């Protein structure tokens, strides 16, 4: 999770920043699902053989969150493409220098 955060902050490439965001999200998902685990339990599909199930509620929340996360990263990628169209680069420093030039 922290690795994703570091990627977001330190990398200059905007596509890599989007990837960092996705990694950050996925780490939180893994944490949530780990809360749902019950030792000796099985997947929450009712059968006669099992006597303990893992908690289905976090699973549902994470299902929703995964799909929303993909929507978020799609929006981020569209933003990156638009930035590339306008500036012809997706490196943060180069865009900054372009901005400074246009101010002068």
């Amino acid at each position, binding site marked *: 999770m922290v690795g994703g955060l570091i990627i977001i902050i330190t990398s200059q490439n905007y596509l890599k920043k989007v990837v960092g965001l996705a990694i950050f999200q996925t780490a939180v998902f893994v944490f949530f699902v780990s809360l749902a685990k019950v030792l000796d339990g099985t997947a929450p599909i009712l059968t006669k053989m099992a006597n*303990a199930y893992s908690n289905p509620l976090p699973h549902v929340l994470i299902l929703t969150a995964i799909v929303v996360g993909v929507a*978020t990263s799609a929006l981020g990628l569209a933003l990156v493409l638009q930035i590339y169209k306008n500036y012809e680069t997706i*490196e943060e420093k180069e865009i900054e220098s372009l901005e400074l030039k246009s101010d002068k």
Partner: protein
Amino acid sequence: MNFLLINFFLISLLLVTTFFIFKTTSLISVVALTGAFTLLCSAIYVNLDAVDVAFTEAAVGSGISTILMVMAAAKLPEGKKNKLINLFPSIILAVAISLILIIIIANLPLLGDPNAPIHLHVVPEYLKESKDFFHIPNVVTNILASYRGFDTLGETIVIFTAGLGVIALLTSNTLNRKTNFKKNKKNER
């Protein structure tokens, strides 16, 4: 014990993948590593008995999102080997956050404890009743579509809005900046 060993192995693989995503500059390998990352995550979900989540992660997370990223990376230029920015403050921030998280995790109930508070409220009723109500053995489906149907409706609205945003961004060509920067570039030449 076996379960913990597998989990430990998979999570250390995740860390390795994250490190290589951090290091590589070529965009297409970043995208491929991200696909590997999400696939590893779905393996972890299977290990944690969350099969539905694993399905979704493998299909949506490592399928659709990797396709989207490949499509974006194909249009973008190759990544350059630039210096990392803000490295020092980000490391301080990361260490601070991980310390806070470790302190919090130490106070959580143990992994897999069946008497943790999360397993005692609402969920036992779901597990007991849902089969009589909906005649579907999969409890996750029951909760997703019936008990919490409005959540799922909200999710669809979010995805719809995101889709509208993507279309609006990709089709708009009328930003003023564009002409500005193109002119600047020509002047330089």
